[in-house]
């Protein structure tokens, strides 16, 4: 398999949702569960009905809201304790 074959392929709508699904929800974790919720959207369940722009939009909005503390809802990344 050449490096070119590693290029990500698939339906565009699927790719970003899958990327987030893989990177944010799967893979080894150092300690305990890492739970990420952005703007009340459970990224584990990002569906095909949500387009890339919608996902980006929600994340942008979430990021903007975090600049207006206090807000307990977005984005939340529970890191291992003691770090």
């Amino acid at each position, binding site marked *: 398999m050449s490096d070119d074959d590693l290029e990500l392929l698939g339906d565009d709508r699927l790719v970003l949702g899958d990327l987030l699904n893989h990177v944010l929800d799967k893979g080894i974790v150092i300690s305990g569960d890492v739970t990420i919720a952005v703007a009340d959207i459970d990224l584990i369940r990002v*569906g095909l009905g949500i387009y890339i722009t919608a996902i980006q939009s929600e994340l942008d909005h979430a990021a903007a809201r975090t600049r207006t503390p206090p807000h307990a809802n977005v984005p939340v990344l529970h890191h291992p304790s003691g770090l």
Partner: protein
Amino acid sequence: MPTYLYCIIPAGCDPPAASRRGVDAAPVRALDAAGVSAWVSDTPNASMSPSVARARVHDDVVRDAMARATPVPARFGQVLADDAALAQWIDERRESLVESLARVRGCVEMSVRILLAGHDAAPGQAPRESGSAYLRWVRERQQTRQSVTDQAEFLRRGVARAVEEAGVVREVRWATVAPGARSLEAAHLVPRDLVARHREVVRSAVERDHRMKVMVSGPWAPYTFCAAGS
């Protein structure tokens, strides 16, 4: 300084290129520990907030490692106090990490999703004229959803059977189906040299059923097959 983890790869693989940048443009480096190699970068933060851009960069680094050997990818946001803390963490889990590396060696992950076409084809708005009309509407909606779900489940099993019979998967992992889900998902661990064949087999397995749409993405690093916790 805190250390951010991208993935673990077998010892002896080429390290990241000197120009390789990770999350927040930090240089990516290899940290050898307990007979494996961790791809890491320094971060001033004890935690890492998620964003699409950062998630992409995380995956880009893992994908870079994947060009050398199949890695055990870390979930986004794994930060340890420093290199020594990460080395200790690896040392304590050396056996399971080496086992995971052996399990995914030579493979990539393909994501297969069956879209439940017609899932929302239930009768429109709930009727308000009477209780019996409402209950009839609820029953019809449930029947429609159940029918579509059953068909998709049948197709999902058919795809799994096809790829196994064709010998293009090493392992299949089903995703849990949530109530009201609009798609059924599965992760396939596929030998690198069979990725193209895998796509063909999946597509031919669903060609006969036009009510469903199958979507395949990948190759990914084997995130789904390396979900071991601490």
